[in-house]
């Protein structure tokens, strides 16, 4: 493929265990604060407890009576989308008559894994359909489109942990294709008991706060949240300043194993190369990398290896110490963080890292670090062997 034109990003929105909006999140990132704790919203009978990063405040959608109507994931998606739209200067009425696409990544948001309903069904209690009706109403991308009365392509991407990154890359391609004038793109996922049970069964969760890239890393902490970008084509954007640009996107599949990454990182390298090609830049132009960095032994080993080979000496960090692994939301939240850090000219420390692993060829930044340069990279690695990379450019001054 050849280089593509940059896509303007005019609005950012995010919420997670790090903060209820972007400003709050950046404060806690740069204070290097995190708050992993045993789950509050549900309990299990696991012998061990695995810390998670739930949303800090009692989450309230910025609208009345919606909480029982939509599942939590789509509420998170909507909240971040509304923050991003406000940031970009749009609302429901100003979007009228425009063709607006919605592309959202998720995992939990699309799964019919309502365990209380199912338990009741198994017991022959013939549960009512309220939970199912809520599920049918709650496809995250469809919720945003319906709430804002939008007309345009709508897609919920379920590529596991790379969904958010993929949604942004795909959304940008819709604009280039002329399929719509604006796109709301990103990811959302809630913390759920089913996922907690699933990840702990895979033995990739840590009983301590996670330690991305650290010698003593034992696994991830789960989190929840949403991160959204507003992408606009030039005709619609006019003279409005961009908050950033999607310069390039690349994706490739390991085709190796359902849950383990390819040890040689071939898929990630290919995704990186495709991203550089689509952005028309060289690796030397990257000023920092927001890594996937979940804190699992396998992921961090592969990523460090590839980063040291393809982007030697380029500062990198994982923000998953602050947010936990937010699954489908991760790519969205981390794109928002990457753009905000580019704007600020600084990246936060890779919280959780204290001791280098001699097996890893590279280590992340250990303190808040100044960044010069206008281009950064965010990458996500997923179950199923997906590797996805976004190259993001600084906005207009």
């Amino acid at each position, binding site marked *: 493929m050849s280089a593509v034109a940059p896509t303007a990003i005019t609005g950012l929105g995010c919420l997670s265990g790090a903060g209820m909006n972007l400003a709050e999140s950046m404060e806690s990132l740069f204070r290097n604060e995190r708050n992993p704790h045993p789950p509050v919203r549900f309990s299990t009978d696991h012998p*061990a407890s695995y810390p998670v990063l739930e949303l800090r405040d009692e989450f309230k959608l910025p609208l009345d009576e919606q909480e029982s109507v939509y599942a939590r994931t789509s509420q998170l998606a909507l909240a971040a989308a509304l923050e991003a739209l406000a940031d970009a200067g749009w609302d429901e009425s100003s979007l009228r008559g425009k063709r607006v696409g919605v592309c959202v990544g998720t995992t939990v948001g699309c799964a019919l894994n309502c365990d209380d309903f199912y338990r009741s069904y198994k017991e022959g209690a013939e549960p009512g359909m309220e939970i199912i009706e809520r599920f049918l109403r709650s496809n995250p991308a469809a919720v945003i489109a319906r709430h804002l009365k939008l007309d345009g392509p709508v897609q919920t991407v379920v590529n596991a942990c790379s969904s958010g990154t993929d949604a942004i890359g795909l959304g940008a391609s819709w604009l280039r294709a002329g399929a719509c004038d604006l796109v709301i793109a990103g990811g959302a996922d809630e913390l759920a008991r089913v996922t907690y049970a699933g990840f702990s069964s895979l*033995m990739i969760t840590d009983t301590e706060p996670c330690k991305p890239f650290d010698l003593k890393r034992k696994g991830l902490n789960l989190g929840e949240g949403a991160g959204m970008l507003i992408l606009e084509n030039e005709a619609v954007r006019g003279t409005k300043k961009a908050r950033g640009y999607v310069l390039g996107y690349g994706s490739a599949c390991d085709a190796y194993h*359902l849950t383990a990454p390819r040890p040689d990182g071939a898929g990630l390298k290919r995704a990186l190369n495709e991203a550089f090609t689509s952005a028309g830049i060289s690796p030397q132009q990257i000023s920092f990398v927001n890594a996937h960095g979940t804190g699992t032994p396998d992921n961090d080993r592969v990523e460090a290896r590839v980063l040291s080979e393809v982007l030697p000496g380029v500062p990198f960090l994982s923000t998953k110490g602050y947010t936990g692994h937010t699954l489908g939301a991760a790519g969205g939240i981390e794109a928002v963080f990457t753009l905000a850090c580019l704007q600020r000219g600084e990246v936060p420390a890779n919280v959780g890292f204290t001791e280098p692993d001699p097996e890893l060829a590279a280590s992340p930044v250990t303190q808040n670090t100044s960044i010069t340069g206008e281009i950064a990279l965010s990458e996500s690695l997923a179950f199923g062997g997906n590797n996805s990379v976004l190259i993001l450019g600084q906005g207009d001054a």
Partner: protein
Amino acid sequence: MGVKEKLKQVLIEDLNLEDVEPDEIDDDMALFGEGLGLDSLDAVELVVIIQKHFGVEIKDMEEGRPAFQTINTLAKYIEERLA
């Protein structure tokens, strides 16, 4: 039924090794890689199988890895913890 026989049976059933008979699994055969050909996903499933059928907990894979070499090592691990 002895631990080894039961292990072979539950491995075949729970890992869906349809084309394998219990007497085809030698007690000393490597379970992972060459041998029975199990992989990392089977390893974590094996932890669940042992919990479910023998009530023995394996806390992490560092503990599990040496035990998972063969039927012999696995049976020994289980028997030690049941005693």
